[in-house]
């Protein structure tokens, strides 16, 4: 039952110039490929139900803890560190994990990167202004992220880094200085938000001196509502959201239409 196929999971060195993707290999372990259903069946016969449940609990804990920092979970890490001998019953374990997350926690486990098998948790429920708890502490970093995502969206998906820095400066947030709330702003924006997959910070080819652009990250595509951002824009500018017709179209497109693509510029 050994799987020697390497192609689908390994990456060629020249593949990604993106700063956002620093993928690690499986440290010499065989790359994980989905077991067939017969393999799963045979696997299930090896273990008792409570053993499998135990693994399910471990996977759940792992995912929940990873989610604290909003770092996506790699399938390879799950298999190597948690599942180990249970790798052949991976599909069954994941099925139970997804079910528990859904019914007990109200979370969805979403694969944001189908090539590298990265997963995140999002909330099944949507917050609205009316239901948001008034006195709950909020994370100011989310405010900063929100501003950046809004600008990128309103600018149709890609912006040069200079635009972001200049906009933030107008809000008294200077990437060159230590900010009272955010500290090292540049690091927060280009490193932390990128690792969390909220943003992509990509080098523009053929630029001299080197320039970078910002785009929405894979997590943002799934977790953030463009329609709601547009609604907020409307409130701020005292305009109807529909006046930004292109953004409106994009925000209200049927799901699946707005996938992250390499170029969203006309």
């Amino acid at each position: 039952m050994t799987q020697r196929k390497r192609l689908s999971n390994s990456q060629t060195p020249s593949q990604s110039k993106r700063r956002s993707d620093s993928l690690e290999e499986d440290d010499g372990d065989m790359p994980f490929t989905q077991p067939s259903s017969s393999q799963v069946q045979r696997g299930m016969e090896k273990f008792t139900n409570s053993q499998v449940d135990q693994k399910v609990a471990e996977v759940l804990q792992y995912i929940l803890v990873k989610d604290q920092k909003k770092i996506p979970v790699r399938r390879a890490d799950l298999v190597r560190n948690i599942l180990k001998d249970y790798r052949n019953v991976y599909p069954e374990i994941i099925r139970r994990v997804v079910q528990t997350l859904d019914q007990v926690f109200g979370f969805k486990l979403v694969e944001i990167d189908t090539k590298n098998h990265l997963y995140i948790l999002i909330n099944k429920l949507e917050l609205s202004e009316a239901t948001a708890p008034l006195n709950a502490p909020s994370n100011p970093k989310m405010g900063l992220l929100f501003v950046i995502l809004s600008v990128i969206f309103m600018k149709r998906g890609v912006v040069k880094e200079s635009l972001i820095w200049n906009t933030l400066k107008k809000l008294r947030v200077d990437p060159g200085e230590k900010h009272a709330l955010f500290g090292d702003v540049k690091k927060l924006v280009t490193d932390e938000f990128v690792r969390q997959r909220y943003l992509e910070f990509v080098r523009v080819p053929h630029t001299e001196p080197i320039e970078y652009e910002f785009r929405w990250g894979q997590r943002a595509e799934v977790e953030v509502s463009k329609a709601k951002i547009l609604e907020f824009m409307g409130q701020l500018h005292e305009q109807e959201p529909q006046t930004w017709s292109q953004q409106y179209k994009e925000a209200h497109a049927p799901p699946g239409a707005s996938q992250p693509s390499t170029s969203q510029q006309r």
Partner: protein
Amino acid sequence: MRKSKGGGEDPSRHNGSTGRRRGDRNSEGDHDGFGSGSLQDDDNDPATRREIRSKYRDLINSVQQNREDMLSPSNNKLTEVLEEANKLFKDVRQPREAALDAQLLVVATDLGKEKASQLFAEGSSFNPAAFAVHLLSFMGLNRLENGDNEEENGEGYLPNDAWDRVARRAECCFRTAPTFHYMMGSFHAEPPPPKQRIERQRKLKKMEESHQEATEKEVERILGYLKSYYQDDPTTPISYYEFVIDPNSFSRTVENMFHASFLIRDGLARMYLDDDKLPCIAPVEEEMEGAASTSRHQCVTSISMKTWRVSQFYL
């Protein structure tokens, strides 16, 4: 690397402020401008060349630094830059300068493309600068009261919860899974309280040790005296009270009693009642130690100021 002549090849766009009209350029004959033979001094003068290159770099920088400014449909700055570039190009003779010209063209074209897209886009444009101003209001910027200029500059006092307000509003747009945290926090590998106790104990021990040392010295000293008195006259019993009482100091007396008790405790001295039933103290001879240790008794001796004063009288 020459720019095309104005007119035919470049359909000029009569869109008012964003229209680009290239300066009309007469081609300057067929002079090959790349550094050969019979040229004027200027063409070879390195200072002039440097100047041209420097001016190009300035132009490029100004486009890059003031990008948003130039994007604004309300001015002609991009056109001005291009006109400036046209002028410079007349003096270009060498590849280095021409390369800079090309670089400027790339930067300017990029900007031009964006300006054009602003024009032809349906729907309202989005201006990040205006967005910032509106957001500052939302964050609760307290503007200074010196008129309207401050509003545009975004000056004023930003409250401490400015970003919290934004974050709260932002939360509604996110479907973030709430994260869990242990209510009591996690526990440390090494619990701090025992550490404190250990440190305190160590301090106490040190204090005790130094006390103990002092006591031991005193005890030894007293033992010394006791032995010497005994040796002076082994047959006469040493009155306990005579031994411990210091007629000049009550506290010293008490200390002597304290130290003497150690001698007795350690079996180095013994107390007994003489024929008059008065307590006496004597050092324990080493051969007799074994016997003495089997018949140990305890008693409590005390003395009060009053008694001491009385004894002063007698000693």
